[in-house]
């Protein structure tokens, strides 16, 4: 079992490196040697060593302390043991201050080396076990693709299980990025319709006429460009589920059409007269407060009652902070695989940054933040430094510098344009940075006529 732990011995005296390496190999460790600080750094970049034995005095540029400091930049979690034949209190203090785990004077008693390594490896084994247990725990808190240990989400999971096999319409409400589509999928895939189609439509991303055609299909010649007959999402989802995301954004006309489908389970394609019957379960979702929309006359009350047969409210991430470590580890594991990066842990400092953030963009924002941090992360551990972009930028004493004479709408347009440019035209990232969902952003891009790609 010890062979899986790699140790690097760094000393310019070959007799020293070889005798220490031989001793550690007899202990069963996998040991390599380096004759200089530079060679040690090359090896540290190529492979991960659990322990570095570094000689204090080495000629040729990097001495032991400098080598250790560079190693710790590459592998912050590695244990570095400084060895020296010229022990002084000053060097010992410097070594320990700069992060050496131990300071050993050579020649040393064999017991010292073996027990020292054993002690370090025992801690590393515990850390590894801890990481494995954390992952097992994360699986325990999983339901379909949803991960949570919060009491409020446990109630959601129970409700999802309960309604999965029913046909009733479900309305999922929650802020952007809380996982409304994941809940919709969980309902669909854990129910009897699980093997049949799940068809998702983002209502906010499409103009009224396009949305109608998207939902109900169109006949050939129904409108300019309708050169062939096309089936809509309701037909495509026959037997399964249609997920209507951002239902609060649909026009009064589509509200009427939808109401009819929900009442009669029948509809006609755009430009057609034939009625088509479908067996479709409808799950709708919105980040808007639909009750208010109804009260203020922007959303039909009859449609609201049709949709709101079963209501699921998803709490924002800031109200279930206990899920942040679990979700962060989940994203780290998944993205490590997807991005081909070996980043397995999140440092305590990084976790504090995540816990302190307010997450206006909720779980989606957390996922984006982890991905962004992983891109810049240079080691196996995600550090607070990698998440520095989450810390609020210091404000000038006079507050934000705002251009004078702009209306609130003009200011919003300017800010969205600037953020879109900063995100290189990436709508997903822009929405996350602005703390709004993508559909709202599309809506604003259309309204302000902002091109998606800044030229």
């Amino acid at each position, binding site marked *: 079992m010890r062979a899986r732990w790699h140790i690097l011995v760094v000393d310019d005296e070959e007799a020293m490196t070889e005798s220490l390496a031989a001793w550690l190999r007899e202990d069963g460790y996998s040991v390599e040697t380096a004759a200089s600080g530079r060679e040690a750094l090359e090896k540290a970049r190529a492979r991960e060593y659990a322990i570095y034995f570094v000689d204090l005095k080495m000629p040729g540029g990097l001495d032991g302390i400098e080598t250790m400091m560079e190693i710790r930049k590459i592998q912050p979690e590695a244990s570095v043991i400084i060895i020296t034949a010229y022990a002084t209190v000053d060097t010992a203090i410097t070594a320990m201050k700069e992060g050496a785990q131990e300071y050993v004077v050579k020649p040393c008693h064999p017991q010292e*080396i073996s027990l020292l390594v054993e002690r370090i490896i025992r801690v590393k084994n515990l850390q590894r076990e801890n990481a494995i247990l954390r992952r097992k725990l994360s699986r325990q808190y999983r339901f379909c693709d949803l991960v949570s240990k919060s009491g409020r989400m446990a109630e959601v999971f129970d409700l999802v299980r309960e309604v999965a096999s029913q046909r009733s319409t479900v309305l999922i409400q929650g802020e952007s990025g809380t996982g409304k589509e994941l809940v919709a999928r969980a309902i669909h895939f854990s129910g009897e319709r699980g093997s049949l189609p799940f068809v998702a439509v983002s209502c906010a991303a499409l103009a009224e006429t396009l949305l109608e055609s998207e939902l109900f299909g169109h006949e050939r010649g129904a409108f300019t460009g309708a050169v062939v007959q096309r089936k809509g999402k309701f037909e495509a989802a026959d037997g399964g589920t249609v997920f209507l995301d951002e239902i609060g954004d649909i026009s009064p006309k589509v509200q009427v059409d939808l109401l009819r489908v929900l009442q009669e389970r029948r509809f006609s394609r755009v430009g057609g007269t034939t009625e088509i019957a479908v067996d479709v379960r409808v799950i709708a979702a919105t980040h808007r407060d639909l009750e208010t929309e109804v009260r203020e006359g922007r959303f039909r009350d009859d449609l609201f009652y049709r949709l709101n047969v079963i209501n699921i409210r998803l709490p924002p991430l800031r109200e279930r902070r206990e899920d942040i470590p679990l979700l962060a580890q989940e994203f780290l594991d998944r993205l490590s695989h997807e991005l081909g990066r070996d980043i397995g842990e999140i440092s305590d400092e990084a976790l504090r940054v995540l816990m302190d953030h307010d997450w206006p963009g909720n779980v989606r924002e957390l996922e984006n933040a982890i991905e962004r941090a992983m891109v810049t992360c240079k080691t196996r551990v995600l550090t607070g430094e990698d998440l520095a972009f989450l810390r609020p930028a210091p404000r000038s004493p006079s507050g934000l510098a705002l251009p004078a004479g702009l209306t609130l709408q003009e200011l919003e347009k300017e800010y969205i344009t600037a953020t879109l440019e900063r995100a290189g035209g990436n709508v997903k990232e822009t929405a996350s940075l602005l703390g709004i969902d993508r559909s709202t952003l599309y809506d604003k891009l259309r309204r302000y006529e902002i091109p998606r790609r800044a030229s």
Partner: protein
Amino acid sequence: MSGLLVAPLPSAPAPLLDRLERDLGRAFALPVRRSGPVAEPAGAWSETRGQWSATDFLRALVARLPPPPCRLLGVTEHDLFVPVLSFVFGQAQLHGRAAVVSLARLRPEFHGLPPDDPLLERRAAKEAVHEVGHTFGLVHCLDRACPMSLSIDLPDLDRKTAEPCPSCSALLEGSLEMQRARAQAEVEPR
């Protein structure tokens, strides 16, 4: 030839060598024979440390190795060191064919106690099995009674037996099997 040669380096008590050879033969199920004495290599004495270089001793033994797969164990009265450690009871080539054992610190009198030859012989036999075990690729065992466990002081060594534990015996058997297969392949070339 297969088996193991034991060489005094340059001298060791004959009854001790007898005991050591018997225990080695039992532990490794190999023929063990005595070889002629080997002189201390020139330059192995370190004036500053007042000890002998185990690495130099090992090098001298490697230069006198019998034909493979036979192994050679040197037994010396001298106190041995390696550069990074203050002393060693012995040293071996991991997966190699040479090993050396020092009797100096195994003697009770080194630690101010009265001489005890039977105790010295038992200690030497265990240490010899330990070092020869390394030549078969065995690493330190976690079973404190196994001769392959790490002895960093004499109480550690005295707690051990000269018989490898079942786990090390199985690994040893695998290593011997490989050795036999290699020898067979050399006898019957394709």
